[in-house]
């Protein structure tokens, strides 16, 4: 089982490789990837350097081209595929059917993974992408239960990668437009959710308000920690009740499921967080490396060590972690 880790820049990539990443995924510095944030990501030169470093140290580099191009921007997506092929990227992580078609036709030998943004949650969808574009792997959305993941893996149409740790999208990836409804920019179109340019913090007598394009997402008392106004993580009013109507700010942590994932035949576990720090990546990757190695050595007696769980809990968003949809009652 492969450990696939995030890197938003070159130092993060080095930290991931040094701490035992089997593969690192990166994006270019534009809207062709779903972490299109200021100051983040790679240009052609740093991407090439990243590939060289990773290859020298026995790791692979995947390129995320996981947003949906519109006609006016098509050349950027095409170019991302071309550059990836030229600099020796090991696999492309693609969401859009048009981009998959372009990559499969022009670079048939460059492996293609279906991005989680491609929203493939069932065997027939996987069969479509396999038949049309000969994808070798699919990253599956964080909405399936462990039983559903197992069934999908049993089918064996394509290798599967699942999310192991990091921010949790409660909506099916690639099928959420809440952000563009509020701000005009969404993960699909711009590679951004609840973009920083639309965020405004307002201090009032009653505490801190956080707003997204003027809509009040949440307000915090002086003794509460004010969180970033991600549109699905706000406190809203429903029939007179004010609560986290969609999702509380928690993170996904599936470390304890490792033996089950391995037994199900899952080929890779992905860590989320290209937008986080180098220290974060180093620490999370180190813990997961140790855990996966321990699980591979002896899955029967695998137990999560308290220091792993504490280490991960300490750096999670909202500091609470959950098994998410893998654990059926969460649904």
């Amino acid at each position, binding site marked *: 089982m492969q450990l696939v880790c995030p890197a938003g820049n070159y130092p993060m990539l080095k930290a991931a490789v040094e701490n035992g990443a089997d593969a690192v995924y990166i994006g270019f510095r534009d809207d062709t990837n779903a972490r299109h944030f200021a100051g983040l990501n790679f240009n052609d030169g740093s991407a090439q350097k990243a590939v060289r470093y990773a290859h020298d140290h026995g790791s692979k580099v995947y390129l995320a081209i996981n947003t949906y*191009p*519109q*006609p*006016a921007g*098509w050349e950027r997506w095409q170019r991302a595929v071309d550059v990836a092929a030229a600099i020796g990227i090991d696999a492309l992580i693609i969401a*859009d*059917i*048009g*981009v998959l*078609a*372009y990559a499969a036709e022009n670079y048939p030998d460059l492996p293609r993974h279906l991005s989680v943004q*491609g*929203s493939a*949650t*069932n*065997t*027939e*969808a996987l*069969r*479509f*992408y396999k*038949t*049309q574009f000969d994808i070798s792997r699919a990253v599956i959305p964080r*909405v*399936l*239960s462990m039983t*559903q993941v197992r*069934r999908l893996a049993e089918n064996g149409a394509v290798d599967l990668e699942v999310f192991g740790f990091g921010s949790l999208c409660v909506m*099916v990836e*690639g*099928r*959420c*437009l*809440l952000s*563009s*409804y*509020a*701000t*005009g920019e*969404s993960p*699909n179109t711009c590679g951004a959710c609840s973009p920083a340019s639309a965020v405004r913090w307002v201090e009032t007598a009653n505490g801190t308000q956080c707003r997204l*394009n003027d*809509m*009040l*997402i*949440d307000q915090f008392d002086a003794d509460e920690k004010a969180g970033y106004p991600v549109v*699905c993580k706000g*406190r*809203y*009013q*429903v029939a007179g*009740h*004010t609560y986290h*109507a*969609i*999702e509380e700010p928690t993170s996904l942590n599936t470390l304890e499921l490792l033996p089950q994932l391995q037994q199900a035949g899952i080929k890779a576990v992905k860590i989320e967080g290209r937008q986080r720090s180098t220290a974060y990546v180093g620490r999370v990757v180190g813990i997961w490396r140790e855990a996966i190695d321990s699980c591979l050595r002896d899955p029967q007696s695998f137990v999560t060590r308290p220091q792993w769980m504490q280490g991960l809990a300490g750096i999670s968003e909202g500091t609470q972690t959950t098994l998410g*949809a893998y654990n*059926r*009652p969460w*649904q």
Partner: protein
Amino acid sequence: MRLSLGPILFFWPRQTAEDFYRQQVNSPLEVIYLGETVCAKRRNLKPADWIELARELAASGKQIVLSTLALIEAGSDLSAIRRLCQNGELLVEANDIGAVQLMADQKLPFVAGPSLNIYNAYTLNTLYRQGMQRWVMPVELNAEVLGDILSDAESLGIGDKIETEVFSFGHLPLAYSARCFTARFHNIPKDHCEFVCQDYPEGLPMDTQEGVEFFNINGIQTQSGRIQHLLPYWRQMRELGVDLMRISPLAQNTGEIIGRYRQVLEGATDDTSIDHCLSAPTCDGYWRRQPGMDSIAAG
């Protein structure tokens, strides 16, 4: 410009849904979509019931299309969709790529529903080759991008081979989840949801703490709190090459809304206002390349 009626997105009792569709037989619509697109647990009408109802409605001469689930998770969901896709006569709206594959297997034509991610003509072309004969534009796209896509489709030689439909009226389907937010509001697990969504025939409004309407909860689907109303833009749509405007059913006044759309499309009136029929304000931002919730011309 033809008018279509989208699938009922809410969970209505069987009798209510059947009565609603039987009324539509005499309405000024050309196309009717029906089927459960939101939650696999909603089985007031099972696939066989939908097919039977669809066949009955088809006798009216309108085009009847069976719509499939947008989020297919379990094997049992797939069996239900297979049943719809293999109905043998009626057109199918695929709302997940899995349904596209099932239609392509049979070499049968299909409609690509609004939850398929079609953002460029290359994607359209791939789906056309699998049998797509009509697509419903993803709701977050705008007039300008639609024009670009259709002009690229022309260059690819498929411009006149596919029809374009725009989700023109209704609460916009914005997101799908494994979680049920209606059950969450009632503090009950989804596996024991008791079908509480049936108590909200037009969804459950979710407002900001300042009382501004923001979203609308419909089980595992999150909709726009405002109601998109694009009738004021129908001439622009016609110029761009849109073939159908879709009206998404509400529990109240849908007949009156269809009537107003038809009157305007026929030139009987220029008055596009429908605010008096609605329980929430309208929006039209997406069409104008603005945040979806924005509104200027509507009403």
